[in-house]
């Protein structure tokens, strides 16, 4: 067996960084998970992008567990026939039907027990559609949302489209923006909140002002829009120099979360643009201030009905590393200091995981997941970045992690049984060189570039970690040779599933990281596995198909000669019937 994952945990031997930042302010924090008031677990369905709206990626099903996982075998396989750029999707499963989006904005409805195709929808872009000449040029789609009788998807030409759940026939479509002007498009899965569908966009590495928009999920009619960069007269506008707010990025390019009890929507926002140079967007004399370039690289909480800002927490003020904070916001209720608190855990691209009180944004603690870290030397008492190692115009500055991120957009998972967060962590560095670039609406605005580097002295460049979000302790860590670019799924069977670029689909013991089962699926993994049941059978489903553009392409360049195979397949596993 050629799995590098079997070699076990390798201690950190890279000299540049301390292993962890443990700057938690929790007093007397317990490690045991507490009973949750949140409905974070999924049951027979997988209803949303992160599973539940708390984004745990945790299935409460336990038919497949540590004792029998080694008996998993394929139940069905579905070839999508769409090889745009791998299969990066999270399938949605409701009442025994799987809704799967593919890179070219196709949707399949499949019988979730057999894989039989029920209907197929192919989105047609505008006849005159031109791919935006900006970061929005990916050919990907990360998933649909389902509300009532509608399956809703964002599109490459920046529309939101709803098709009928039973027929696949188009019902409504609304252009959220013109991708030819904004350089933006939609790859992320929408979030359903009450009777609304909320969507962000890609494009924040271009000269663009990010926003979230809410529509009536039944009719497609506009409800509200929240710009992630405040306009003239709004609080936070003065954190931008001159007209830079128009081009400052902050695109919320992944999917948010929702707490029904607090009625708050949580979303992570993208990096500030131009990516690697802040001189054009920083007000004079405020370079060292907190709260610069709001609300980029932040977690924002919005009132669901109005889209008004409830609170924000900026994780990377005046970002100059392309450290998007657009990733998943994981909501949980945990005991801290002897009392139950409503918290959230949120990792940004730098690998810092911020833990906040989700009622008001109060900072509770932070920990850092990559073993190689040079971009900062430490973190202050209130989460402020210390010892920033910043790019310089015309000079090459080695920074770890690189803009690939200490984690890519593939998602973490959280198990209430173990109380642990499971993270697919990456270890890549980059030589960044900044430039002073003029902003031009909708055009790439990176203000520099970078050359990825493998950190020296390592034999593996990724690790699957289990972290206690309350103590900031890494409970276990398993190395992986190249990169972990697929999301994590965890289940009540105390299992953790993910896939690797070499095509292995893997199951680990959630309590200690022991590898319990693996299956060679034939192509690299970049999507998100889910679990659901039909009748009395639990299924574990994973998209298979490597993304070979952008981040995936960077890895292919770093590991020249490796063949991370493309593909576009849904593979579904279950136990033999005698179980």
């Amino acid at each position, binding site marked *: 067996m050629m799995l590098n994952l079997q070699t076990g945990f390798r201690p950190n031997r890279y000299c540049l960084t301390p292993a962890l930042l443990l700057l938690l302010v929790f007093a007397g924090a317990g490690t045991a998970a507490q009973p949750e008031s949140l409905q974070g677990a999924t049951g027979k369905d997988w209803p949303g992008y992160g599973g539940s709206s708390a984004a745990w990626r945790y299935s409460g099903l336990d038919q497949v567990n540590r004792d029998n996982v080694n008996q998993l075998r394929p139940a069905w396989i579905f070839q999508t026939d769409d090889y745009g*750029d791998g299969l990066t999707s999270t399938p949605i499963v409701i009442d025994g039907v799987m809704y799967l989006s593919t890179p070219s904005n196709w949707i399949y409805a499949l019988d979730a027990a057999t894989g039989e195709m029920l209907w197929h929808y192919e989105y047609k872009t505008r006849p005159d559609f031109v791919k935006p000449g900006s970061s929005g040029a990916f050919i990907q789609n990360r998933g649909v949302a389902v509300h009532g009788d509608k399956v809703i998807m964002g599109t490459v030409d920046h529309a939101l489209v709803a098709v009928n759940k039973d027929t696949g026939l188009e019902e*409504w479509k609304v252009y959220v923006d013109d991708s030819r002007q904004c350089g933006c498009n939609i790859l992320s899965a929408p979030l359903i909140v009450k009777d609304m569908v909320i969507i962000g966009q890609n494009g924040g590495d271009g000269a663009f002002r990010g926003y979230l928009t809410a529509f009536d999920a039944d009719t497609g*009619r506009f409800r509200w829009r929240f710009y992630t960069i405040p306009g003239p007269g709004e609080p936070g506008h003065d954190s931008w120099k001159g007209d830079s707010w128009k081009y400052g990025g902050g695109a919320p390019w992944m999917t948010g979360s929702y707490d029904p009890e607090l009625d708050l929507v949580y979303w992570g926002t993208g990096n500030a643009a131009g990516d690697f140079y802040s001189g054009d967007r920083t007000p004079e004399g405020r370079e060292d201030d907190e709260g610069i370039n709001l609300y980029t690289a932040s977690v924002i909480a919005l009132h669901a009905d109005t889209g008004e800002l409830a609170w924000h927490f900026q994780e990377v003020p005046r970002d100059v590393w392309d450290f998007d904070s657009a990733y998943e916001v994981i909501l949980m209720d945990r005991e801290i200091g002897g009392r139950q608190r409503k918290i959230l855990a949120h990792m940004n691209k730098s690998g810092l995981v911020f833990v906040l009180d989700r009622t008001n944004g109060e900072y509770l603690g932070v920990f850092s997941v990559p073993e190689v870290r040079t971009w900062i030397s430490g973190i202050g008492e209130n989460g402020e970045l210390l010892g920033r190692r910043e790019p310089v115009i015309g000079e090459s500055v080695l920074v770890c992690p690189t803009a690939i991120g200490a984690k890519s957009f593939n998602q973490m998972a959280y198990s209430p049984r173990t109380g642990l967060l499971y993270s697919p962590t990456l270890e890549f560095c980059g030589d960044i060189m900044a430039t002073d670039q003029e902003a031009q609406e909708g055009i790439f605005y990176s203000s520099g570039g970078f050359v990825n580097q493998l950190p020296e002295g390592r034999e593996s460049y990724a690790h699957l970690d289990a972290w206690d979000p309350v103590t900031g302790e890494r409970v276990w860590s398993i190395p992986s040779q190249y990169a972990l670019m697929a999301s994590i799924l965890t289940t009540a069977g105390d299992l953790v599933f993910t896939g690797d670029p070499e095509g292995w689909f893997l199951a680990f013991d959630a309590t200690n990281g022991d590898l319990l089962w693996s299956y060679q699926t034939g192509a690299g993994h970049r999507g998100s596995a889910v679990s659901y049941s039909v009748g009395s059978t639990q299924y574990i489903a994973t998209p298979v198909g490597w993304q070979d553009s952008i981040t995936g392409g960077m890895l292919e360049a770093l590991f020249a000669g490796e063949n991370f195979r493309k593909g576009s397949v849904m593979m579904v596993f279950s136990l033999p019937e005698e179980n």
Partner: protein
Amino acid sequence: MSNIMKTLMLCIVYLILAIPMATQHTFAANLDNPLLDRGEEVYRMTCATSYCHGVGGEAAGAPRLAARDFDPLYIAEITANGVPDTPMAGFANALSGEDLTAVMTYVASLNGIYNPEFSVNDPLASLGIAQVNPRRIPLAGNSQAGRELFFDAYDKGIKRCSTCHEMEGIGIPVAAPIQDIPGSVRALKNLATAEVHTVVISDESMPALILSQGVAGTLLYDLTSVPPVLRTIQPGIDLEIEDMSNWQHRDFIQAYSDQELSLVLDFLNAITE
């Protein structure tokens, strides 16, 4: 170590470092083509951001471009129009003609072609390729201010003209192409839009622009809110269409002052001439 020794050692280090760089860039450095400098600059900012191609045509998030034996026609076609079913975008809309020519010239140089025949003023027409977006060419005076208002994503946001009108290759063509330009701001506000009907779908009434009716159902824009929603009403669903509508153009252009609308009219007149 003496200062001389230090200097000597530094020189050796620099020389060693410089050898591969010099080899890599010899062809560019020896050329007397003024487009190359600008081309390299445009390439660095637009293509070699590392998310896509790498510096000097190296592979990064997208494939290597240097030493691929690309011919000029291929370079021009791909640069202008992109590659279907891949992330490679077309840049005919995104760059000025001069910058497009410059970056194509630079990529040609990475493939050993130092003087490709791309014309600065008309880089694409001679190759039969889509023309550069006219929006990149500034208009005179008020017309340019009107153009910026028409496409204003910042102050007007979703309530800008181009949410419903496509001009110069930008905007959502909800409305038919603008042909008869109103003679005044007042006329613009009072614009009679006979194509808008009141439609009743399953007891819900809405102003709508009907695009088609046929066996596959009725395709219409619901104009209740901005942006308009393109709806497909399947056959068999109750649908009534009334001739008249209370919908008014003035309600949808409230984000603009009269003065701004006047500038928008200047823009429309200028580009229609």
